């Protein structure tokens, strides 16, 4: 006699217990410390902060540990935590021109004020597996140091703008929207688009950015500048009335110099694609800048034909927490609907077979 399955609650409990066990792994191995993750898997932590939309290295490292290294799961954990935090106000805009720079490169000028600073980068490494790391990781000799160039490092796009060669962004002065409080509506203005892209999935934006390079909405980009470092966050408490520095956050900024616009009456100017991401995330910042620029196609009077130029397509699908939830919900039972489809298809087959027999 068939008895309907019961005991979902026990099964879930057992599954979670198994998950705990497997997350910890072989007890003979030392457990990974959150501080080690924060330090030695720093780029994973940065990605989780960016997509989790919450700048907290410690919490992001904890999320990486809890998620067994699944970075989208970790970003989800961080987001779910982030929603519970009270909001006490908005900071002043970051001034990335005053960044304490760890890395700063420009592809448009051989040399420039402040110089090219390579910083810690995988670029120019040969991607050969380093078996010495597997054999125990000795502390490397300290990297050579030098005094930082005392010259200020103005932003490349600013240098161009001073000459009138780069279109200036206009600050409308309006309070920017907040997509975590109000749902997106279309057309979405640029601050909202940048918010969505900043927390968007690195892989999705990378693919879209890449598609623009392959002809699906090309906008002729040059890396004006990428800079990585720490920026001060300032906040004006209402009871004080003047800004105070409340800390520093690490960010990566990418400014792309893109194809010019202009006409007989308007002198031609380059246009800007902008990327800003928590932590050290050059691939993400560059992809974001490419996609930001392609999403401006409409307002710059260009044809909008490619996926990367389509606001609804890009912004509704770039959030990996939303995407992973909906894709993975297909794992949930759907047998009620499937039963309807079964009956439906059976009826249709009967009709078709009868018709064929006649």
């Amino acid at each position, binding site marked *: 006699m068939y008895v309907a399955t019961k005991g979902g609650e026990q099964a879930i409990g057992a599954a979670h217990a198994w998950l705990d066990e497997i997350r910890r792994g072989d007890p003979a191995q030392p457990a990974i410390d959150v501080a080690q993750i924060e330090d030695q898997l720093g780029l994973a932590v940065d990605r989780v902060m960016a997509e989790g939309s919450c700048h907290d290295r410690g919490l992001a490292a904890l999320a990486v540990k809890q998620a067994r290294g699944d970075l989208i799961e970790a970003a989800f954990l961080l987001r779910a935590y982030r*929603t519970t*935090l009270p909001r006490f106000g908005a900071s002043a805009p970051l001034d990335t021109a005053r960044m304490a720079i760890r890395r700063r490169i420009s592809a448009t000028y051989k040399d420039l004020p402040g110089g090219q600073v390579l910083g810690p980068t995988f670029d120019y490494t040969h991607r050969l597996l380093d078996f010495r790391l597997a054999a125990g990781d000795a502390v490397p000799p300290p990297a050579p140091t030098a005094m930082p160039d005392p010259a200020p490092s103005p932003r490349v796009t600013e240098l161009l703008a001073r000459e009138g060669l780069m279109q200036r962004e206009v600050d409308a002065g309006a309070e920017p929207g907040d997509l975590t409080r*109000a749902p997106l509506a279309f057309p979405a203005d640029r601050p909202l688009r940048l918010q969505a892209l900043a927390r968007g999935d690195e892989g999705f934006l990378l693919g879209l950015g890449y598609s623009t390079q392959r002809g699906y909405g090309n906008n002729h980009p040059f890396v004006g500048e990428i800079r990585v470092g720490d920026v001060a966050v300032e906040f004006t408490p209402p009871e004080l009335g003047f800004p105070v520095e409340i800390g520093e956050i690490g960010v990566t900024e990418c400014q792309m110099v893109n194809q010019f616009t202009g006409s007989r009456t308007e002198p031609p100017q380059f246009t800007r694609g902008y990327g800003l991401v928590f932590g050290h995330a050059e691939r993400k910042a560059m992809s974001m800048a490419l996609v930001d620029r392609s999403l401006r196609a409409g307002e710059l009077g260009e044809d909008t034909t490619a996926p990367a130029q389509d606001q609804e397509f890009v912004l509704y699908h770039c959030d990996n927490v939303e995407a992973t939830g909906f894709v993975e919900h297909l794992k949930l039972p*759907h*047998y*009620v609907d499937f039963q309807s489809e079964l*009956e439906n298809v059976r009826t249709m087959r009967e009709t078709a077979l009868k018709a064929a027999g006649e």
Partner: protein
Amino acid sequence: MTGTTQAPSPPTGGRGSGEGGTRDPGYNFAYLDESTKRMIRRAILKAVAIPGHQVPFGSREMPLPYGWGTGGIQVTAAILGPADVLKVIDQGADDTTNAVSIRAFFRRVAGVATTERTAEATVIQTRHRIPERALHEDQVLVYQVPIPEPLMRLEPRIAETKRLHAMADYGLMHVKLYEDIARHGHIATSYNYPVMVNGRYLMSPSPIPAFDNPKMDRMPALQLFGAGREKRIYAVPPYTPVRSLDFEDHPFRPIRAQHPCTLCGSTDSYLDEVLTDDVGGRIFVCSDTDWCGERQQAKAAVE
């Protein structure tokens, strides 16, 4: 985790006389903070005022994944009072994994009483089914909705579908149903079957089987629909006409497997097909576990 949130105002009310258990003191009653609940209630009120119209709301990131009921959970959290009695079903059953998980969530963060009995519940959160037992005025049915836009498969752009709703321009859907008939001889939609609410708005009933659609019509209970990922709430107020789209010569037909339930013998409830072996053995049982259980008990009592 939320040690910094403001002290929650003591909640009162609820539709039932449930006696809640203890709840996790680390969270506000029913997880969401009071201002978020207020925002959601405003959206619900607007939705009730315009039956079938999708109201955008500031959907929050929940500790459960998008697509797993975050919209329904937010609606439930916003309407729940400590005296409420909550029932959660998925595929008509109380013991499916996701229903178990959501029920446990509310037990933890709201401490409300939960039940598996449809008759005893004041709030029923559901995925993919409407209970077989007729609901009454003191109950609220909260649907989890994956895609609130009934036109999405025909027109993916929300900016455009908004315009179509504004103009009540539902020709796309009629053409789609007509094409079904032309191709297959009848309408080939068996679940998530589109309905007209109050003669004005085309609405997705969420992916319930078409069999359940007639239950929505003039239902005495308030029906609320929450789509978390898509950030929309909509509603069907009590006793509102809800009509499944059809044609005069091709009337709407609810689909159900033509068998009695193997366990309780019901011939008018929606059935799940269960494979019992790999040589074609199968039985059909009620998808609504509470309904089936009650009927089995009644049968046993008679015998």
